[in-house]
């Protein structure tokens, strides 16, 4: 047994987190910053944090993840990190020459109370920021929120630093895709493009964290939203933000700063969430939905009807990031599956928890929900009330193996399988892929468990 000490008996814990279902803010900030073209993320703290964040992102994407650090030593921790950050900015522009540096803090620099804008101003005054180059920042204290909060904060910083209203509203729609895969970002943009809509999407990690192998390493690859686009997003007609937790702060900030009205939607996971996304785009941009999209939608509906019998009534346990967990829960309930144990590690608020409870209102079984919860509790729930399927990140495989339950890997991090950065799970097509994964897991198990008499050729 891998998790041989997990007690079936649940004792409430108030201080000890075991097997967390979240990690710290800076990694989310780093991921978001990688979605800006020519940007080098910078971790203002000791070098352990950036080493960990880079490693974790690299394991997930199997791609280069470059970032820099202020490399605090004990002295800097006592006297503050100004000298380190100024020196870092100088070295980064001299040696690596990015367009922009995105500084995020760590629990170390936050605890000390370093004032990043003031330090950056000093670096500028000292001539360390070359003409036409930028430094922006987000505060990402790791003792508040989670990696999703860090992503939200860095995305919001893009608006705060760069968005400008030029007085004229363009026809462009801003898309804030949320803490999703590069493939998801590409798919979200594709749907809008097929509808004939011009978009600015930020952040955008497509082609950054799923880049080609050509024999020529580019530290700053093709993809990413440009600073110019970020400046222009303040003059767009509207913003569609996907995922309340990851994307709402930036959308609201843009509305407040540049009066760009925003709509906050669920991540477009599954039929109805994608419907809402497409319909919102249609109305905001004043376009009609082309046949190509109707076809994609119809194919998804067709597939649901074809395979419904294997999904109906299946009990599912879901652990993941809040925006994904909510949208996924709604999708599964819509397939007549039964999400019965649901955990997100990220603190997401009472309103969020209520949305989750509403989403499962139709499920006939007793449903466990914990926001925020950890994967020890998740495992204990499973031991007490088993399920047919687990949906979670790579860490869930230890539970799946011990309890002999099929697993669909979903979310962050996925360290042990390919595909997530290339095949989207968003939109109608993404829903097809998600269904394929779910059905493969369920039907593979059915085949495995069938005896010689009941084995089915056709399903």
């Amino acid at each position, binding site marked *: 047994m891998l998790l041989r000490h997990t007690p079936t008996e649940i004792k409430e814990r108030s201080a000890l*987190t075991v097997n967390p279902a979240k990690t710290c803010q800076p990694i989310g900030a780093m991921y978001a910053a990688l979605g800006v073209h020519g940007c080098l993320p910078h971790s203002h703290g000791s*070098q352990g944090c950036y080493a*960990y*964040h880079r490693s974790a992102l690299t394991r997930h994407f199997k791609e280069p993840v470059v970032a820099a650090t202020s490399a605090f030593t004990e002295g800097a*921790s006592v006297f503050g990190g100004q000298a380190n950050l100024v020196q870092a900015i100088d070295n980064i522009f*001299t040696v690596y020459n990015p367009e922009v540096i995105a500084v995020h803090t760590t629990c170390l620099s*936050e605890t000390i109370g370093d004032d990043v804008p003031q330090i950056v101003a000093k670096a500028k005054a000292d001539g360390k920021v070359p003409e036409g180059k930028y430094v922006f920042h987000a505060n990402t204290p790791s003792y508040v929120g989670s990696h999703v909060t860090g992503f939200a904060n860095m995305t919001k910083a893009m608006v705060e630093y760069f968005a400008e209203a030029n007085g004229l509203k363009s026809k462009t729609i801003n898309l804030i895709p949320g803490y999703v895969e590069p493939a998801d970002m590409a798919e979200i943009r594709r749907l809008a493009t097929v509808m004939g809509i011009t978009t600015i999407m930020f952040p955008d990690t497509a082609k950054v964290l799923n880049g080609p192998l050509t024999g020529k390493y580019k530290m700053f690859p093709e993809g990413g939203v440009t600073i110019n686009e970020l400046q222009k997003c303040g003059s767009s007609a509207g913003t569609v933000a996907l995922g309340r937790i990851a994307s709402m702060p930036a959308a609201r900030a843009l509305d407040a700063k540049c009066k760009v009205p925003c709509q906050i939607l669920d991540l477009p996971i599954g039929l109805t969430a994608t419907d809402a996304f497409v319909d919102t785009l249609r109305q905001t941009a004043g376009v009609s939905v082309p046949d190509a999209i109707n076809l994609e939608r119809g194919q998804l509906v067709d597939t649901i009807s074809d395979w419904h019998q294997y999904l109906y009534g299946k009990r599912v346990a879901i652990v993941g990031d809040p925006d994904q967990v909510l949208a996924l829960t709604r999708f599964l309930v819509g397939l007549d599956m039964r999400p019965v144990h649901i955990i997100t590690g990220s603190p997401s608020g009472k309103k969020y928890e209520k949305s989750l409870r509403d989403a499962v209102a139709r499920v006939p079984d007793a449903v466990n929900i914990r926001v925020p919860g950890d994967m020890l509790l998740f495992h204990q729930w499973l031991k007490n009330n088993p399920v047919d399927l687990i949906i979670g990140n790579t860490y869930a495989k230890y539970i799946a193996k011990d309890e002999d339950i099929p697993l669909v890997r979903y979310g962050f991090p996925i360290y042990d399988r390919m595909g997530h950065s290339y095949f989207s799970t968003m939109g109608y097509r993404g829903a097809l892929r998600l269904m394929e994964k779910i059905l493969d897991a369920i039907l593979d198990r059915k085949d495995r468990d069938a005896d010689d008499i009941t084995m089915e050729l056709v399903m």
Partner: protein
Amino acid sequence: MAKATSKLATESIKLENHDPEKIKARLLAKYPPKVARKRAKQIVVNKVDRDGKVPVISSNVRTVPGLIGQRGCCYAGCKGVVLGPTRDIINITHGPIGCGYYSWLTRRNQTDPDKAANGQASDGHNFMTYCFSTDMQDEEIIFGGEKKLKQAIQEAYDNFKPKAIAVFSTCPVGLIGDDVHAVCREMKAKLGINVFGFSCEGYKGVSQSAGHHIANNGIFTHVVGLDDTITAGKYRINLLGEYNIGGDAFEIERLFERCGITLVSSYSGNSSIDAFANSHTADLNLIMCHRSINYVAEMMETKYGVPWIKVNFIGAAATAKSLRKIAQYFDEEELTAQVEAVIADELPAVTAACEEIRPRTVGKRAMLFVGGSRAHHYQELFGELGIKTLSAGYEFGHRDDYEGRRVLPDIKVDADSRNIEELEIQPDPERFHPRIDEAKRKTLEAEGLGFSDYEGMMPEMPDGSMVIDDLSQYETDELIRIFKPDLFCAGIKEKYAVQKHGIPLKQLHSYDYGGPYAGFKGAINFYKEIDRMVNSRVWEYMQAPWEASPELSATYAWE
């Protein structure tokens, strides 16, 4: 410049034909002057004197902010490296969630909880698949985290009933002034199990290395010597600085078993805290990774009289040599004969595998930048395959790892290292007993068995090879552009950038999820893996056919 580069980047050019000093100048040219001055002392062209002396290399010094390097932090070295692989202890990270999360199961230390070392019954404890954290929130940052830590220890005890609990401090803990040691003492008294803490805040020292030292101190203070039982077995040894990545320790244990050597404890691959407690009863300490663990060996010798020797089980010849060193030390006919029999039995398969593969690897060129010992050890295996090491360096080694322990008296202790406690160890009044007498030690030394000695990496590297400490991303890219090596060895963070250049990268921390590479069977695995990597077809696919000949032909193919 561009032209010169493309000329250099051909297969026929070897380092010997370059002027390494010019390459060094090229690596430094882009840096601001202050940075260039500092890096100049960390980039050294190797030259071995007749008496084995090598040039001084600046190492274990601060990383330059903004330069992008490989290093991690003190916490990583303490929790991740030294105590992470110990299965039967609950390791609680005291701090915000990240640090504990990232060190959760990411280091591949295999363990076998159902088989205790030394033939003892196993209690089956294994907490390595779990991550325990106090997940500090802003209230604790403001008002202190001791109360939460106490409660967390209590909850760990209530839920899991472990034999021992260790607490690891992350960055904010030191700043807000939590006294983790006091909390641990209190909980130890309350729960009646061993509870101890480490002040291994990430900002201490300049790399993981500080954390290794702190971990060594902590284990030695709180665990070693708690159990004086002399367990059964002849030739009782400890294996230090071997972390059982990909099962390396299992392979070494297999060889020990075959030779009749008894492994009392291992630091800390496949290890248990019970075995640590008893480890001072061994008669010899073997050191694999000198950087991470030499402190425990030194302290054990001073306090209990257990001598140490450096070994290396990476490489077939090195493995045979290390086994022979053990036999030489114990100096008993029976052991010597058994060791020779095992070597004679195992070596032919290794040699056969090597001979089969070598024609496909000979003449290839590698670069190794990793850790604090592997950049040295793995040169052995590459040598066996006929692969030449053009350049190498450590991520967090010290001068003694590069130049050998002979330079220890000359190492200047700077402010960053002074902050890491050196324990004052005295011989134990009852339990100190030198395992061999002075005369015997002298004889063995005269026969070439070096005690308490590590010669370092540089004396074993050819003149003119480049030794670079704490390599930066920029230097990595430049070295690759200049030399186009056939293989680069580093870690996960470096892997994919190097591979985008079209050069395979072998991870020498995690082994790319392969291994074992230690011992005889490991050597065979490694030969095969390197053959696979340097001869993979994928590197031929980078250019599309239409990129190779972009001219448009005048006619369509089917016309």
